[in-house]
């Protein structure tokens, strides 16, 4: 027989915790004697015991109560399942929908609701590197307010400032696509794949900051933004509309953000002012992580699914065909790039700017080929697919 003395502790002061702890150590039918002096203890105890499924034996002495541990006390957890293991290696291949939002590794009560997470297979979305990339991303979050020298004095010639505003307008539009696309997949993903979900969430947060700093740079000296073209939007819409996670990750993170990484580094190098230099540098450091995850995820998926590369190649062809009759890159954006690289309006400078911009396109192509080969494409296939990428860069 087990006995506890709770003194004058009342039920609503936490006496039930002491009882629960003592009963947990007993088997069904075993007896717990409780000494308690609070005046309403018996009334409260009776109601509590009944709700918990414990029986109350007739009282013996005053201020002494006898509880018999009930059969059903642990019955809630009959049929409960452990939702994988908490650690990075603990994700299962196909977590059931009924595990829902439970933390990975938690014990899940049977009878919970069935969720409808469309992305619920590890092979379709997992990358071993996700946890490491997430930790790196969390540590690398920068504060737009303090990371950019907003107050540093500078004055650019009117057309150069216009060119910067046009580029920022273009960047905001593209970064918005890069925010919207992973966000949609976060909501479709089984939360069992915690690390991937966290990584996509922090990617979306990265893009939110990019949208902020590019907008703020555009409005630093002007009160209006630049131009948005139908062709640019059409190109981005193909990303927003893509329903398949792997294809979307490929088009956005490998092809698009891979190309953008080269663009942002070019802008940083040729930035005419300290603010433009800072915002493009900060954005590039984030984009590099997005590209790294895209490549890691697709390389792992492709090693498990031999038909994946073919599907990805097909998606590039499909997107190319969809955009065949669109203008692609905004002409103002391209001219703005030449002007920034040129630095001024002399014929010699413009020739140099054009040369550097042509070189940028070659660098972008080379970057895409390298990434495509890392995903698993042959040198020839990589060269061909890179050539079919949208002229809008993203």
């Amino acid at each position, binding site marked *: 027989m087990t006995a506890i003395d709770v003194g004058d502790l009342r039920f609503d002061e936490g006496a039930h915790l002491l009882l629960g702890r003592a009963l947990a150590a007993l088997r069904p039918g075993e007896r717990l004697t409780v000494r308690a002096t609070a*005046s*309403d203890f*018996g*009334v409260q105890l*009776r109601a509590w015991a*009944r*709700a*918990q*499924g414990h029986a109350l034996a007739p009282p013996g002495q005053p201020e002494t109560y006898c509880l018999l541990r*009930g059969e*059903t006390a642990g*019955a*809630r957890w*009959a*049929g409960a399942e452990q939702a994988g293991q908490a650690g990075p290696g603990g994700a299962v291949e196909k977590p059931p929908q009924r595990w829902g939002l439970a933390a990975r590794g938690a014990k899940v*009560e*049977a*009878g*919970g609701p069935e969720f409808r997470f469309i992305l619920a297979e590890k092979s379709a979305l997992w990358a071993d590197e996700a946890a490491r990339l997430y930790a790196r991303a969390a540590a690398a979050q920068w504060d737009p307010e303090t990371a950019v020298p907003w107050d540093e004095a500078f004055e650019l010639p009117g057309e150069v400032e216009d060119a910067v505003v046009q580029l920022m307008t273009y960047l905001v539009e593209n970064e918005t696509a890069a925010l919207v696309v992973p966000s949609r997949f976060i909501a479709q993903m089984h939360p069992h794949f915690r690390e991937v979900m966290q990584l996509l969430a922090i990617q979306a947060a990265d893009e939110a900051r990019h949208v902020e700093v590019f907008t703020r740079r555009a409005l630093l000296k002007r009160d209006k933004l630049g131009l948005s073209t139908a062709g640019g939007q059409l190109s981005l819409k193909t990303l927003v509309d893509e329903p398949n996670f792997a294809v979307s990750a490929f088009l956005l993170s490998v092809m698009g953000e891979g190309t953008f990484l080269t663009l942002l580094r070019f802008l940083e190098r040729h930035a005419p002012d300290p603010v433009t230099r800072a915002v493009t540098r900060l954005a590039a450091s984030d984009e590099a992580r997005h590209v790294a995850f895209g490549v890691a995820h697709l390389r792992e998926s492709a090693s498990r699914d031999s038909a994946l590369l073919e599907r990805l190649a097909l998606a590039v062809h499909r997107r190319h065909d969809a955009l065949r009759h669109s203008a692609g890159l905004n002409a103002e954006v391209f001219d703005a790039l030449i002007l920034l690289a040129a630095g001024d309006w002399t014929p010699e400078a413009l020739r140099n700017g054009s040369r550097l911009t042509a070189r940028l396109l070659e660098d972008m192509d080379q970057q895409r080929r390298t990434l495509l080969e890392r995903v698993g494409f042959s040198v020839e296939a990589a060269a061909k697919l890179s050539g079919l990428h949208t002229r809008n860069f993203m």
Partner: protein
Amino acid sequence: MLTQTPPYDHCNFTALDNAPEQQTARFRELLLEMRYDDPAVRGLMDMEGLKQWLPGRTEGYAALSRACERFGTLDGFVRYLTT
């Protein structure tokens, strides 16, 4: 708290005298078969605050009933229902 009545059950199913006997018996049987370790019915039992259904007993209500009559506790409610 001035005093206490003996315990009484917090709810029960009451059938009218002319309720179909066979169906009433089957209903009772189904309730008594409900088990708290069955996730399909656990939610319902949780809402009712119980772990198990037990055969009905009305003895515990006697004191409550006497008190209601003496103090007219339910008279207003009954009038509301019948007018």
